[in-house]
């Protein structure tokens, strides 16, 4: 074993995912996910010494992850606090760093939500208390829209190319019985373009869902993972970039065009592999365009060619870059911040090779990305089958 402390994903769980889960509460959903992931791993909660889990409450201290300590090995040796550190590639990498440094040995990471996103219909990313954005009608979709619009202007990326990405990923969800929109398709490019514009250039079917549900993963050392029941999946490398605080200032394409390139370089160098070695892509797909930009970011095609690259069948199960085979945020689920963890989970499941009809044959390596140009930050992780 090269590094006995190498961070390894050993457990995972996803609750029911739906537009609405009547009668469920966020905290109780999160507990279901935590216990589910521990059961999947075969890990006793009393041996967990690190937590990166949303504390929804009631009870405990609102937002304070240390509130979980009594349920695990008390005192905990490590927690992560900021809500963005409790999910996805960012949460995974910070927990992995803590494990590899010896700050703790076994971490549960998880979160989720029940109840409407906004009682009054406020859009995601609107009314964020951002003094120079909110009042002009800002929202997450509108901000990503400005980046996509500029990419279209500079490179001639077309509405059809972006729609093809959305149709492909939504069709992945259409045949995934676990996806919130299972059976809702199939979709053609024309179907995507016929859906109403939310924030140009994005049509409704190019924008991610809003769902309820929870999920969790368990990480430990490679050494401990050998004694556990699941096929180990190692965290091989990762990287992050933060251009500026999210959504407060305009995401100019000329700044965002390189977002993630350094992070990718760092991640691939540590993992000792290249982007072309990745078997399964789990790319952030809050909007169709961001998938296109990330292929450019990864250097799999030249800047400006992402539209043609992603639109010609490459991202299907049989293509050379199978992407978001669970249906992604567009069709599988988006559950608040824990959406990001769903990306990690699909990656791990592909490497466990238990994805059934959507399984990429002999998958050894997967890439997971979170956030992107509109948000002005990105996190990405490379996972490998142990």
């Amino acid at each position, binding site marked *: 074993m090269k590094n006995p402390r190498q961070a390894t994903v050993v457990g995972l769980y996803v609750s029911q995912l739906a537009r609405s889960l009547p009668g469920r509460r966020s905290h109780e959903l999160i507990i279901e996910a935590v216990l589910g992931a521990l059961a999947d791993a075969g890990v006793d909660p009393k041996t967990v010494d690190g937590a990166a889990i949303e504390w929804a409450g009631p009870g405990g201290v609102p937002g304070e992850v240390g509130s979980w300590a009594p349920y695990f090995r008390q005192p905990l040796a490590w927690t992560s606090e900021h809500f963005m550190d409790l999910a996805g590639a960012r949460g995974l990498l910070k927990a992995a760093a803590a494990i590899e440094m010896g700050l703790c040995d076994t971490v549960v990471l998880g979160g989720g939500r029940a109840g409407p996103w906004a009682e009054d219909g406020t859009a995601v990313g609107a009314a964020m208390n951002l003094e120079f954005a909110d009042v002009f009608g800002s929202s997450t979709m509108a901000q990503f829209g400005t980046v996509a619009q*500029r990419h279209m202007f500079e490179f001639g990326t077309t509405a059809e190319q972006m729609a093809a990405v959305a149709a492909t990923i939504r069709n992945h969800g259409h045949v995934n019985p676990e996806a919130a929109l299972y059976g809702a398709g199939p979709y053609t490019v024309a179907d995507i373009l016929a859906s109403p514009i939310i924030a140009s250039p994005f049509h409704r079917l190019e924008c991610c869902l809003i769902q309820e549900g929870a999920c969790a993963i368990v990480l430990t050392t490679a050494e401990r993972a050998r004694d556990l029941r699941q096929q180990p999946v190692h965290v091989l490398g990762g990287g992050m970039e933060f251009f500026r605080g999210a959504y407060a200032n305009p995401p100019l394409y000329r700044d965002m065009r390189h977002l993630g390139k350094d992070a990718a370089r760092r991640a691939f160098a540590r993992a000792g592999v290249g982007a072309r070695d990745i078997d399964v892509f789990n790319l952030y797909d809050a909007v169709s365009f961001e998938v296109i930009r990330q292929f450019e970011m990864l250097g799999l095609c030249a800047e400006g060619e992402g539209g043609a690259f992603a639109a010609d069948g490459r991202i299907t199960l049989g293509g050379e870059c199978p992407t978001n085979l669970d249906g992604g945020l567009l069709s599988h689920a988006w559950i608040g911040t824990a959406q990001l963890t769903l990306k990690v989970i699909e990656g791990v499941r592909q490497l466990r090779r238990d994805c059934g009809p959507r399984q990429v044959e002999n998958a050894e390596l997967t890439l997971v990305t979170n956030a992107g140009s509109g948000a002005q930050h990105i996190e990405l992780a490379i996972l490998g089958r142990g």
Partner: protein
Amino acid sequence: MNAFTASDMTRPFWDGCREHQLRLPRCNDCGRWFFAPEIACIHCFSQNWQWLDSPGRGSLYSYSVVHRAPVPGHAVPFVFAVIELDEGVSLFSNLVQCDFDAIAIGMRVEVVFEDGPDGRTLPRFKPGR
């Protein structure tokens, strides 16, 4: 919508808008403009900066025509715009007095002041020279 209250740091900007004058932070030490206002100049960390008047001219860097109301009661469709001012800073705004099919990235724009939903006067932009 609740009435807006500016902070001490940002009040000169909104007071300027009420007087139909766009003002931007400019660093007295390194001479560069920045936006949005922050305690320190984002270029050199200096806290020695001041508000200077801007002619409010620039170009449309990018935009999104929004059809889904961001908050209840917000009129749609509208143009969510990224404006690049001639001073070199960019800001969010709205493009107004322009047909949607006449919107062109790179088009020249100039500031126009309009009443906002929360008591603020907003710097919006119309086609200009």
